[in-house]
């Protein structure tokens, strides 16, 4: 589990959510559970991210009946969402790369 600060967390959470929903359509609770397994986060703060990504057109939602109770809202990634995910992943990789390089550099000295 990773412990991180808010601003940083936002970016990471968005990336994670994008990656998960790209794999398969998921509903809110399922997503929150999945994300909180990876990152230590207040589960309440994941919904706003879903909301934002939907508002910005990266996700589409649809309702599907469930056996246990009321219908569930599923999230589906759009073309724009896929593009966004790609950008985010690249950004993350280059970011992580430069941080790693820096760590290696400071180790030598």
């Amino acid at each position, binding site marked *: 589990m990773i412990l991180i600060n808010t601003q940083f967390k936002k970016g990471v959470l968005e990336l994670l959510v994008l990656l998960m929903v790209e794999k398969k359509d998921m509903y809110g*609770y399922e997503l929150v559970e999945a994300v909180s397994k990876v990152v230590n986060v*207040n589960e*309440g*703060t994941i*919904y706003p991210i879903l909301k*934002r990504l939907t508002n910005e057109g990266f996700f589409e939602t649809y309702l599907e009946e469930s056996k246990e109770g*009321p219908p569930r809202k599923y999230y589906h990634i759009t073309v724009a969402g896929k593009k966004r995910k790609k950008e985010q992943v690249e950004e993350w990789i280059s970011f992580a790369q430069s941080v790693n390089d820096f760590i290696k550099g400071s180790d030598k000295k």
Partner: protein
Amino acid sequence: MTKSEFLKKLKKKIDILEESEVEDILKDYEGFIDEKINQGMSESDAVSSLGNLDEITEELLSAYKIKKTPNKSENIINHFVNQIIDIIEKIIYAFSHKSLREIIRFMFEIVGIFLILFLCKIPFEIIISLGKNVLYDLCTSIGGYSFYEIVSGIAKFFIEMIYLIFAIILFIKLFENRYKNSDFFDTKEMNRNVPKKKNEVIKESENKSKAKEIEHEGLSILDILVNICMFIIKSFVFFVLIWVIFYIVGMTAAVGISIYLFTLGITYIGFYLGILSLLILGICIFLVLFNFIFNRKNNLVALFFTTLGSLIFLGIGIGIATIEVAQTQIVYDTENNQNLEVQTFEYPMKENLVLHNFGTNYKIDDSLNDLIRVEYKYNPDFVDYHFYEENEMYQDFEIITSRYDVTSFDYNHKIFEQFLEDLKHKKIQINNYDLHITVYVSSEVYNQLKSNEEKLNALYDRDYDLEDICYELNNQGYEVPSYCLPYLYEEM
């Protein structure tokens, strides 16, 4: 915290959003909590697993691009100052980038806000005057008049302060409501995220186009006022423009005259320069006013440099003109002019003679004895005279009146030419074309003449007085004495 409590609090916090959005969000959280409970978690654990409510709210609002609502722990004064600075910034920006029309409209709205504030003052004034009466009775019975004055002063101060605070808040609120979402302060550089109120969650673009539609649909009273104001300003400018046109015509004529004078060889360069730059300045002003009336654009750079240039030339011109004026010689010579024409008339002195209209320039020459010699001097280049005299009797006195006619028509023309000729040499002659009369007499004759004149004047005075008395007597119906008859008959 229970589920319903949580949802209630959350609902309150995101109240700013559209209702359907609020419902959607609440459903999400409700579903989450229900799922947790289904998994075997207790209700309160499920709720607390969601985390801090404030944090959730902040995140949610930011998902709608809504700025975090001001934190209560934040310094209120700081916030207030920031807001004011914000508004001032916007005003300055708006004023430097908006058209006159929009600014006038804005002024009217500010006046409107002040009017509202003024109306709000009325209840406060009523409270103050009512309170004064009550306080007067109360305080004078306790501590006398001075006590009343102190108490009422303090009370008035507090009420005024309350009004002041109230007014400031009201002003800011009204101002914000009007301008936060309006186009007036809408700028690319200063675009801020503006909270969308419940009823305004329609997409931004829709919002704007709607607002514009409303603007185009009907003229509000404000628009009419603005139009009237623009019309008045334009009419005023138009009248100014007429004067500017006259000015330009006059200045053009002046430039023409300058060129003419220059070709004659008169070199008042400073004046010419000044006149030319004044003409150019006039044309600049004309262009600005003209473009304003017909809503045309000015070529500001060219205008600026032309104006600057002509101002500089005007300054140089004034400087040179001052030197030129200082160099100009003003000549008052008349008597010493060699070219003057002299005409002499001679009259024999008589005991009862009075000279009239011969001027005051008497010169004593005892060799003349009983002869009176009159000299007329004038410059024949300009003017020619024909001199003669009129003789008349008044009672016992013989009066000679000097008369002359101008016979030459070259008078003005020659003066003008002489003036120009003199200007070439930076010289102005004054009075040299006047007529000068000198009377030469012996001292004895002079005294006699003066005494005769005095006597005659006394006679005139007496006769005029007498005439008045006779008229008065006649008017009042008295029988008039015989010496009155000539006066009365004359009138008839």
